[in-house]
C-alpha cells in the first residue's frame, strides 16, 4: 500500500486548494481525496454497508508480441458504495475501458483483488443486434430473462419513449443515426434490471443538445430510482454534473492520481459557479 500512496502523493498536484482560499462557504463543494490515508479510509463511509465495487491493488496488463506487456492499469484501489455515481476521467489509453470490463467480469485482474455486484455494461460501441428492431434491442435483457417478445416490448416501451425514441420502435439499427443507436444501447442498459451500471462514454456519440438532455434525464432517473453508476467519460462537465465522485486516471499505465467529491445535490445547474470552478481544477490535473 505504501508505494501506491507515495506515488499518488508525488503525482497529485493537490487538486483542490482549501476552500477558504477561494472564499467558498465552510461546507466545501469538493474535498481533496484521502489517498495518503490507510486503505480502509479509501472505502465508503461505514453506514453504506458493503461496497458495490471494491478494488484493491488491481493491475491489468496485456501480453504483446516481442515487446514487454502493455500495462493498462496499475495498482488501482477504490471502493464504490451502493447508490454512488462515480465518473472516471483520464486521457485516451489510460485503461478506463479496461477498468469497466474488469468490474463487469469480462476481464480478470493480473494482480490484486476485485469484487463487484452484477453489472450491466453499456459499451462504447453501441453493439446493437443488427437483426432485431430497436425496441427489441432495448428490451434484450428482458428477453434473455425469459419474458415473451410481446412482454419485453411492453416493458421496454416507457424507457424507450422517455429517451426520445418514440416512433422508431420497429427500425433496425442500421436505419438509425449514431445518436439514436447510442440511446437504444442506453435503454438496453437501464432495462437490464441490474443495480450497477457501467457506462463507457454513454453520451459520446450525441450532439451537444441531446447530450445535455440525456444527462439531465439520467440525473432525474437516478434521483427517482437510485442505482450505482460507474461511468467513463472524456467530458469533464458531464462528470461534475452527474457524479458524486470524479476519479482521475493517469496516462498509461493508468493509476488513480486524483479524486474529487462533488457534494452538490442533483439535478445540478451546469452554470453553477462552483461546478465550473471544479471542472477547471479537474482539467488542470488532466493536463
Amino acid at each position: 500500500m505504501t508505494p501506491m500512496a507515495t506515488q499518488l502523493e508525488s503525482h497529485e498536484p493537490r487538486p483542490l486548494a482549501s476552500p477558504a482560499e477561494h472564499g467558498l462557504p465552510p461546507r466545501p463543494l469538493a474535498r481533496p481525496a484521502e489517498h495518503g490515508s490507510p486503505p480502509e479510509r479509501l472505502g465508503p463511509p461505514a453506514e453504506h454497508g458493503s461496497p458495490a465495487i471494491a478494488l484493491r491493488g488491481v493491475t491489468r496488463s496485456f501480453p504483446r508480441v516481442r515487446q514487454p506487456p502493455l500495462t493498462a492499469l496499475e495498482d488501482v484501489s477504490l471502493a464504490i458504495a451502493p447508490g454512488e455515481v462515480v465518473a472516471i476521467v483520464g486521457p485516451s489509453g489510460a485503461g478506463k475501458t479496461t477498468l469497466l470490463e474488469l468490474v463487469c467480469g469480462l476481464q480478470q485482474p493480473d494482480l490484486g483483488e476485485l469484487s463487484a455486484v452484477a453489472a450491466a455494461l453499456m459499451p462504447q460501441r453501441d453493439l446493437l443486434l443488427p437483426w432485431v428492431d430497436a425496441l427489441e434491442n432495448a428490451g434484450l435483457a428482458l428477453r434473455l430473462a425469459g419474458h415473451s417478445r410481446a412482454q419485453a416490448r411492453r416493458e421496454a416501451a416507457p424507457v424507450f419513449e422517455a429517451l426520445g425514441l418514440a416512433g422508431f420502435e420497429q427500425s433496425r439499427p442500421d436505419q438509425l443515426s449514431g445518436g439514436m443507436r447510442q440511446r437504444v444501447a442506453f435503454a438496453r442498459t437501464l432495462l437490464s434490471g441490474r443495480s450497477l451500471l457501467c457506462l463507457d462514454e454513454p453520451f459520446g456519440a450525441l450532439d451537444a443538445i441531446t447530450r445535455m438532455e440525456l444527462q439531465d434525464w439520467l440525473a432525474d432517473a437516478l434521483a427517482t430510482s437510485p442505482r450505482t453508476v460507474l461511468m467513463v467519460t472524456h467530458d469533464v462537465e458531464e462528470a461534475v454534473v452527474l457524479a458524486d465522485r470524479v476519479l482521475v486516471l493517469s496516462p498509461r499505465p493508468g493509476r488513480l492520481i486524483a479524486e474529487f467529491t462533488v457534494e452538490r445535490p442533483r439535478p445540478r445547474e451546469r452554470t453553477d459557479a462552483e461546478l465550473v470552478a471544479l471542472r477547471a481544477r479537474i482539467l488542470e490535473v488532466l493536463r
Partner: protein
Amino acid sequence: MRAASTVLGPVVRVLSTGRPRRAPRAPSASVQVPAPAAAAVAGSRQAASVLAPVGLLVVLLAGWELYARLGSVSPVILPSPSAIASSLVDDRALLWTNFTVTAGEALGGIGLAVIGALALAGAIHFSRSLRLAVYPLLVASQAVPLVLLAPLLVAWLGFGLAPKLAIVVLVSFFPILVATLDGLAATDPDLLKLVRTLGATRWQAFVSVEAPNALPGVFTGARVAVVFSLIGAFLAEWSGASRGLGLLVEQAIPQLDTARAAAAVALLAGFALLLFGGLGLAERRLLPWTRTVSR
C-alpha cells in the same frame, strides 16, 4: 421489355453481384436532380442490368451458331444453338418429365444437406473435439471422385431415389457446412461479451447472437451448393437410373442425338441460374439487415 426488366431486374442484379446489395440509393435532396432525370437514370440502370447479360448471351450464341454451321466440327459433336433450341421445343414433353425427376432429386438432396450441415455445424461449433475428429474426414471426403462413389452407392442403395439423394447430399453438404461454421466463428466477440453481461446463458448467446450472425453464411453456402447439387443429381442418374436428365443424356449420346443431350444440359443450366438468383432474393427478403454494407 418494361415488364421483363421489372421482373428480371432484381434477379439479374443478384446474379451479377453474387451477394445481394442494397439497391442504389435515390439521389438525396441536396443533389437536386430533377425528378424525371432521376427516373431516367434509374430506368437506364434497370435496363442495363437486363441488357448486359442478355446482350452477352446473344453474342455468344451467335458466335457458336456461326462456328457450328461454318466450322469443320460435326454437328454430332457440337450441335448448333438452333438445333438445341428446336430439340427443346420438339422434345419438351420428354425433357420436362425427366427434368422434374432430376430437379426433385436435387432439391430433396439440398434440403437434407441444409438440415444436416446446420446440425453438424452447431455441434462442431460447441465441441472442439468433434471438430478435430470430423472436419479432416469431411475435407478429405470432398476429394473422392464422384464417379468412384456413385456405383458403390448404387450397389448399396439400389437404383431408386436413395443413391441420388445420397450423392446430392455428399456434394452440397460441405459448402453449406463450411460457410455456416465460418459465420458462427465470425461473431463479434464484443457482442458475445455484451449479452453475457446482460445475463445470457451459453445457449442463449448462441441462439440470439451466433446463429443469426451465421445466417448470411448459410445462404452463401446454399448458393454454391445448389449448383453442385444439380451436377450431383445428374451424375447419380448417369450411374444407374430409370428416369432423369442424366439417363436421358446417357441414352441420347450413343444415339448421336447430341442436340437433345445439350438441350437437357441447357435446362439444367437455366434451373441453376433460377435457384441461385432465387436464393439471393430470398436472402434479401429474409435477412434485410445484410443489405447494408456493415458500418
